[in-house]
């Protein structure tokens, strides 16, 4: 591997900067804050770049961005807004599913409703952070489950459960917006 950190930065970090910014925006919900977070994350990444030996630079960078963002949020005391109840992974999904099939709304109607991008963006940004990060990493950043588990430090089962619940919440809310 090339020992020059600048060259390594160019190959490992630079191509993923846009993803890092987009991810940070979804977490902080603010463009300027996201830039601050990514800048701080890049400083950390640059410092530890010699120790990076893996093959997945994007997941590595997103992990640093995620940790930096969470530190940053808790410094600003914004994380306290997340209620523990929201993050209980044991909540049963079948109840929500049961409600879903009683009301007779066609899937096509839901898909049409989802064409409203502004609404969708608002609903995603209002998801509790624990759900939002998993949903964004999968459905917007396109990471695989085990990569999301690596980035967030959550067990695979928790990743799966939060992803399913995040999507279910969105579908339920879209249905409510329409009724």
């Amino acid at each position: 591997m090339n020992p020059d950190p600048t060259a390594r930065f160019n190959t490992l970090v630079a191509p993923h900067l846009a993803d890092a910014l987009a991810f940070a925006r979804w977490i902080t919900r603010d463009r300027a804050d996201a830039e601050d977070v990514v800048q701080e994350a890049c400083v950390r990444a640059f410092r530890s770049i010699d120790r990076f030996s893996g093959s997945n630079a994007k997941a590595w960078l997103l992990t640093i961005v995620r940790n930096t963002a969470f530190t940053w949020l808790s410094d600003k005391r914004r994380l306290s807004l997340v209620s523990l109840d929201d993050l209980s992974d044991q909540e049963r999904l079948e109840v929500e599913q049961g409600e879903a099939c009683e009301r007779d709304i066609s899937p096509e109607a839901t898909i049409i409703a989802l064409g409203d991008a502004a609404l969708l963006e608002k609903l995603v940004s209002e998801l509790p952070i624990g759900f939002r990060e998993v949903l964004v990493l999968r459905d917007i950043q396109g990471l695989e489950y085990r990569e999301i588990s690596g980035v967030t430090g959550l067990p695979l089962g928790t990743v799966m459960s939060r992803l399913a619940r995040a999507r279910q919440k969105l579908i339920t809310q879209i249905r409510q917006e329409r009724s």
Partner: protein
Amino acid sequence: MPLTHDDVLLLHAYLDGELDLATSLNMERRIREDPVLQRVASEVKGLKLALSRMHTDREVADAFLSRLERKLGIGRRWSPPQWMLLAASLMIVAGISGSLTSIAVLQREPLSSSTQLLDGHLRSLMSSHQTDVSSSDHHTVKPWFNGRITQAPRVVDLTDQGFEMLGARIDVIAGTPVPTLVYRRRQHVISLSEMLLDKATEKGEIQQTSEHGYNIVTWTEGQRSFVAISDLNSTELVSFAQSFRDSS
């Protein structure tokens, strides 16, 4: 019958392409037979599609870059001098030379071609110049190649499969111009290059590998071989390759 917690998790994992073949086939059958699963699957699919189409800003502001460069104490990374591009590509050679040797496309120029394709992909990502012709219309892109290269590359519209065409460019591999189509899935750019082989081959299996976070899939078909490079996850990149390959 109400769905259990595990059913729901399996359904999502199935729609995300995360299940092994046997579990996946089993899920497919259950979705066919169970109207509740069918409805939920259709809703989740619709949501995933809408999320993937949602516009995400890909702009890295110049002011931010300058600030970052000052902070890190590094030079003008975004207009890198020639030696720096060379250094970057040499690193990639060192990285991929071990794993790409077996790929069918490389019959002619075993290492340098894939290296240069990856290099071309990276360089296009770092600049704003990802395509020489920008169009989402394959009727515009295909004729653009006329007169620029001797081969008539296959151009396929994959919008319905969720891959938007951004345009095309010509990469030069071992002194030969190679047509490269540029697609996008969410914000992930896919470079798809088509190379002519010395002799015809059977329609080959899709092979995949990855280096430095970039997934690479290749396949051959008649006298053509295709290489797709992206930071898109491997499952979706393979599905891109399948859609493209099976479109003829």
